Structure formats: structure tokens, C-alpha cells
């Protein structure tokens, strides 16, 4: 993984000093609440219902064991013993005390970490494929490009006060696991007819109140032009994006209003005028960053049968929670953070420490955070899988539910968030209670259930195969259900609302009725979302509301 050089380290150190000064001025009454808000947000600090929430950046989801141990220490010493992995490959702490936040940031800096630009109207953490570097369908490792974009975006003097937040995702594989079509900018690594590597650039995708699939602004951009193209897109957005209405301020609104062709015209004009002095990636700099993402010291192994003779539980876990690896003899292993004992994405300090130790023993000391709020050991020898499974079982990180209904995404909802309309964790519990039969879950196959406590859509409900959205009706919590959405690749699309909202107690029954329709009507090999798309929501709607008639 990338290692800081003195420049990287100094920027992070100086950022900590800057924020310490800002915090002290705020606490001394020299900085207004409103001004401090702008500044603390750019350092990942929100004020939530009960306490500040600190979001720490995990660039493209990649972590070392040393970093995990610092996460554990922060959870233990500054929080209530846990952290929460987010859908954007970051980690959040829900209970830090404001005066101590600079100390937390200083601690993070000792392991090359920070909270820079994890919130606020600026360029956020760059996200990517959680199987980068190991996936069989990968054309090019996206991580060096993520790092180059991360550095360009960090404390960018011109784009630190944008109309609204700005998210960039990069993918280099055939299967898009980074949801590039629902980002402000999506970068897809590809080769042109001449075999040259470059980027397709998508712009104006997003979720939230106005979900939109991004449009292609450039079909092929050469690597050395990547940053200059990004600068021109950002400059046009910074100047032309709406600032009068927070709900209309994302780049997707601008692109939609102008149309992609007109938007491209503006970007082209800026690019033509600025190309001589815009940042350009040199071959040397690309090579320098790429050198950090060389493969680890794999052994020469063959694929082995690790399930024969083993019990059903291990087989299930192997089937559900591990993935193919491009190197023979290795597998990628998911650590499920979807236990019945904790909210989705939550992890305790003891688990974090244990994961750090296991990573060192079994996966070259590295861990990845996924978009689905789980963790991955990317490089595990197949011969170690059984032993690793036993150890993960012992720390409750081996629930064999990856990709199933109970591998749910949920934002914290009304339990912690001041924006939420409704609770999400209680609904998660209801679903976990009802759907505890793994064989039934496996029969249902891949289902992405995504839940948000309000229309800000932190749980990405629009792109769930099943989406659940908390709504407030006369002070009561209700839940709207959408079906047929999907986050990734060509199938990325938004779900459709099936009808009236439900009380939370009704949700398990509603899901069961939807699944009954699916099981009855599915064709061979069809996933739930495929059946919905083939038939439309009609039969599902009829099934879901059958008791209303």
C-alpha cells in the first residue's frame, strides 16, 4: 500500500495543527459557531444528536494492521468501545469529545491517517473496488490512480468551498464494484483500440433526494490529462453550480439542467484555456505511486479443495464469504460486520485488535473496508482458510451471510443521527429475527437490501435491490419500500416505490410476501432484482399489499 513521504506526512501534521488552532479559537469564543462548522466539517467532524461524530478517511478502503490498532485505541480511549464502518469505506466514531478531537487526529497522523475532507462541501475520500489488485476480472489496478487523485484533491486551494460535497470513485475491473455511475465523478479504467490505457469519465451521478445515473463526459482520457480534465470539471461546477438551494447544489443538478453536451462544452472551453498550466501527471510520478501497489510476496501454490471432509458451517462460510483470487492457491475473505449482535458496520475495539493480528498472520497485514460495510482479507492462502474461519467465528466475524438479505446496509438512523426521520437499527433487528434460516437466505440468493433513515440516503436505499426509506408521517416512523434498484455497473439503476408506507412491524411480512412472489415467478438463475426487472413491480406490488384488499 501507499507509504507517506515527508511531503504527505507534513501536510497531515500541519492540518492537525491548523485544526487544533481552530478548535481552540472556537472553544475560546473567537470563532463563531457557524464559521467553526464549516471548518470542522472539512475535518470530518459533525455534531450529531448526542455528541460530535468524527469520520476518519480510509483512502479507497485500504488499511494496514498498524492503522487498525490505532482505530481500536481510538474506540477504547475516545469512544464507547466501537467504531462504525461506512458505505464509503470510511470509519466513524460517534462519541468523541470536541476538545479531544485534535488529539485523535494527531494519533491518526502517526499511522498516516487523517479526517481531511471527509465531510463538508469539498472533494471527499476517493473510493474504489474493494477487490482491487486481486480480482480476476481486473483490467488495471485502480488504487494508484485513486492515490494520485487523492493527493490532487487534498487541500486543493481552489475547490475547498464547492457548492456541495463531491465524491469520486474509480474502477478498473469489468464488474463495477465501486458504483461509479452514482458518483459526482466516476472514473473507469479502460484501453482504447490502440491498447493504450486511459479513463472513461462519468459525471453527474448521485443518490440523495434526486437520484441520477451519471453520464459519460469523456469516453477516453489519457492518464497525463486526468487531473487537468478533473480540474476543468470542478472549475465549471464551482462557478456554475447552484448555491441558492442546498438540495439543488450537487453537480448532478447542474449537468441535468445544462444537458451533458452543454456541460461538456463549458468544460472543454476551460480545459482548452488552461491546459498549458493545469496539473499534468508525469510518467515518473505515475511510476512512483504505482510502485507502492506491487503484489505482495505470494507463494507458488495451486488451488486446493478445502471443503471436502469439513462440516456444513465451514462449507457455507467458504461458499458465501470467500471469493476467487487471481493468484492460484489464494482466496479473498469477507469478514461479515452484519452480526445479529451489533448494527451493520459496527465493530468493537477488541475485534479491531483481533482483526489486525489476523491480518498479519493470514493476509500480509492488510485489510480493506467495503462499500457494503464489511471488511476483506484480500490475500489468504486457501490452506489457511479453515483455521482462519475458526478464529473469525470466535470473534463473531464469520456470519455466512455476505451478499444475502441480512448483509444489509443501514445508516445509523434516528438512534444517532439528527437528520433522520426514523430508526433503522430496530428494523434491522426485526429482519434479522425473521430471516435467520440460512438455507432460506441462500435460496433467495443475492439480495442487496439498503436502508436509509431519511431522504438524504446515506444507506443508498435507491440502489438497493430492496430499498427501505424511513419517512416521518405526523411524527410517526413509517417506511417506504422500493424494489429493482442496483448500485453497480451497467445494471446500475434506481428502484421503484411499491406503494404506501409501512409501520416497522410490517416490514418482515412485506419482505416475506415479496419473496413469495419472487420464488413463484423466478426463472432459472434469476436473482430477485432480475425478476423484478423482467416483470416490473406489478406482481410484487400485488403480493405486498394482498392483505389490503
Amino acid at each position, binding site marked *: 500500500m501507499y507509504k507517506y513521504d515527508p*511531503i504527505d506526512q507534513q501536510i497531515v501534521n500541519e492540518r492537525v495543527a491548523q485544526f487544533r488552532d481552530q478548535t481552540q479559537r472556537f472553544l475560546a469564543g473567537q470563532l463563531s459557531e457557524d*464559521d467553526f462548522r464549516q471548518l470542522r466539517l472539512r475535518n470530518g467532524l459533525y455534531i450529531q444528536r448526542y455528541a460530535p461524530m468524527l469520520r476518519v478517511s480510509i483512502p479507497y478502503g485500504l488499511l494496514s494492521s498498524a492503522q487498525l490498532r490505532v482505530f481500536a485505541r481510538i474506540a477504547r480511549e475516545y469512544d464507547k468501545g466501537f467504531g462504525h464502518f461506512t458505505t464509503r469505506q470510511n470509519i466513524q466514531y460517534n462519541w468523541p469529545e470536541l476538545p479531544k478531537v485534535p488529539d485523535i487526529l494527531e494519533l491518526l497522523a502517526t499511522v498516516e491517517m487523517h479526517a481531511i475532507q471527509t465531510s463538508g462541501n469539498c472533494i471527499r475520500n476517493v473510493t474504489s473496488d474493494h477487490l482491487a489488485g486481486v480480482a480476476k476480472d481486473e483490467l488495471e489496478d485502480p488504487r494508484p490512480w485513486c492515490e494520485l487523485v487523492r493527493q490532487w484533491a487534498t*487541500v*486543493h*486551494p481552489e*475547490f475547498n468551498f464547492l457548492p456541495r460535497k463531491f465524491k469520486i470513485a474509480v474502477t478498473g475491473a469489468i464488474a463495477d464494484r465501486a458504483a461509479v455511475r452514482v458518483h459526482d465523478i466516476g472514473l473507469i479504467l479502460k484501453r482504447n483500440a490502440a491498447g493504450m490505457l486511459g479513463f472513461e469519465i462519468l459525471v453527474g451521478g448521485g443518490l440523495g433526494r434526486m437520484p441520477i445515473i451519471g453520464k459519460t463526459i469523456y469516453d477516453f482520457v489519457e492518464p497525463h490529462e486526468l487531473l487537468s480534465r478533473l480540474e476543468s470539471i470542478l*472549475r465549471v461546477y*464551482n462557478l456554475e453550480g447552484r*448555491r441558492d438551494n442546498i438540495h439543488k447544489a450537487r453537480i448532478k443538478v447542474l449537468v441535468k439542467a445544462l444537458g451533458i453536451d452543454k456541460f461538456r462544452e463549458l468544460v472543454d472551453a476551460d480545459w482548452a484555456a488552461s491546459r498549458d498550466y493545469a496539473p499534468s501527471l508525469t510518467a515518473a510520478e505515475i511510476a512512483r505511486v504505482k510502485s507502492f501497489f506491487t503484489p505482495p510476496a505470494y507463494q507458488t501454490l495451486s488451488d486446493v479443495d478445502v471443503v471436502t471432509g469439513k462440516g456444513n458451517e465451514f462449507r457455507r462460510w467458504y461458499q458465501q464469504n470467500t471469493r476467487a483470487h487471481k493468484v492460484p492457491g489464494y482466496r479473498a475473505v469477507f469478514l461479515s460486520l452484519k452480526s445479529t449482535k451489533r448494527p451493520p458496520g459496527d465493530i468493537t475495539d477488541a475485534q479491531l485488535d483481533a482483526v489486525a493480528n489476523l491480518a498479519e498472520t493470514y493476509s500480509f497485514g492488510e485489510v480493506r473496508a467495503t462499500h457494503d460495510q464489511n471488511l476483506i482479507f484480500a490475500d489468504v492462502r486457501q490452506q489457511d482458510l479453515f483455521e482462519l474461519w475458526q478464529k473469525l467465528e470466535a470473534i463473531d466475524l464469520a456470519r455466512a451471510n455476505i451478499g444475502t438479505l441480512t448483509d444489509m446496509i443501514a445508516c445509523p438512523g434516528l438512534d444517532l443521527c439528527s437528520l433522520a426521520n426514523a430508526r433503522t437499527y430496530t428494523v434491522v433487528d426485526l429482519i434479522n429475527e425473521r430471516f435467520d434460516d440460512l438455507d432460506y437466505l441462500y435460496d433467495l440468493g443475492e439480495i442487496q437490501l439498503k436502508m436509509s433513515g431519511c431522504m438524504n440516503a446515506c444507506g443508498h436505499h435507491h440502489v438497493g435491490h430492496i430499498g427501505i426509506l424511513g419517512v416521518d408521517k405526523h411524527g410517526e416512523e413509517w417506511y417506504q419500500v422500493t424494489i429493482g434498484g442496483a448500485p453497480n455497473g451497467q445494471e446500475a439503476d434506481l428502484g421503484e416505490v411499491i406503494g404506501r408506507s409501512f409501520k416497522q412491524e410490517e416490514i418482515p411480512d412485506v419482505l416475506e410476501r415479496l419473496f413469495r412472489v419472487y420464488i413463484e415467478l423466478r426463472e432459472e438463475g434469476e436473482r430477485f432484482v432480475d425478476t423484478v426487472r423482467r416483470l416490473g413491480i406489478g406482481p410484487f406490488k400485488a403480493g405486498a399489499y394482498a392483505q389490503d384488499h
Partner: protein
Amino acid sequence: MRKIIKQRQIIADSWQYVEEAPDASAVILSLTQWQAERESLLASGRKLGVKIGPADKVEMLAEDISKLQLIALEFTGLGEGRGYSQAHILRRRYSFNGELRAIGKIQRDQLFCMARCGIDAYELPEGSNLEVALTAFTDYSVAYQPGIDAGGVQLKQRAS
């Protein structure tokens, strides 16, 4: 007399706004007035500056770059970010080399990024502590981006 920060020094402002002194020898005008009285103003032999707001297009000044000695960019608060791009375009695309001044509701915390975008003068609201504001220019000693480094903020960058 008003004090401003220019090129990392606290100095007395040698400019006046047209509302303060219509006949000043160095006068800052509104964009509307500049456009309406352009010819007579140019003939007056005075030093001329124009003030533009965040929504104004800097392209409107493209023809006048060499005739203006000052352009003032108005900021309406910490969250208003258009002035950074306006400054960048004026300095780089139009090679404006007069005084580029940030005015309005500006504060210490913005100065570093402003300087990096080519702003070299800062008219902070009355009552601001300019001595403290000067420390903003040393918030960082390194940067990832090629900056314009106006106002004497020169940062170390990675050689590549």
C-alpha cells in the same frame, strides 16, 4: 485610514471606493459603473479598480485586464467558494498582474487558499486582528497542487 494585508505585510490602503471618495486618484468601482463609464474613466488618468461579486463572470473583464490596476473579489462568507476560481482564471487565463484583493466577509481561515489561487491583498472586516491573520500564510509549508503562490506563499512541492 484603512489597513489591509498585501503581500504578507500590513499596509495602509492606498485605494478608495467610489462611494467613499468619488474623485480619488486610485478608485474602486462597481462593475456596472465601470461598464457604463469605461471611456471617460480611462481618459481620467486615475488608477482604476473594479469590484466583482461571486456571481459575476470574470470573462466580462477579459478585454480590460491591462487597463485595471486592481480587481476586488467579494466573498459573502466562509462557504462562498467562487472567488477562488475567479482568482485562478484572472491570474492564469488572463495573466492579470495587478492587485487581486479579497473583500467582504473574509477571515483568517480562508487566506491560505486565497493566496494559493493568486489573491495577494486582503481587506478584512473592520475589527479583524490583522497580526493574527498574517499567521495564516504559514498554515502549510508543502502542497500537492501547483499554486500561483501570490502574496509570497511559496510551498515545497514534490519534484516530478
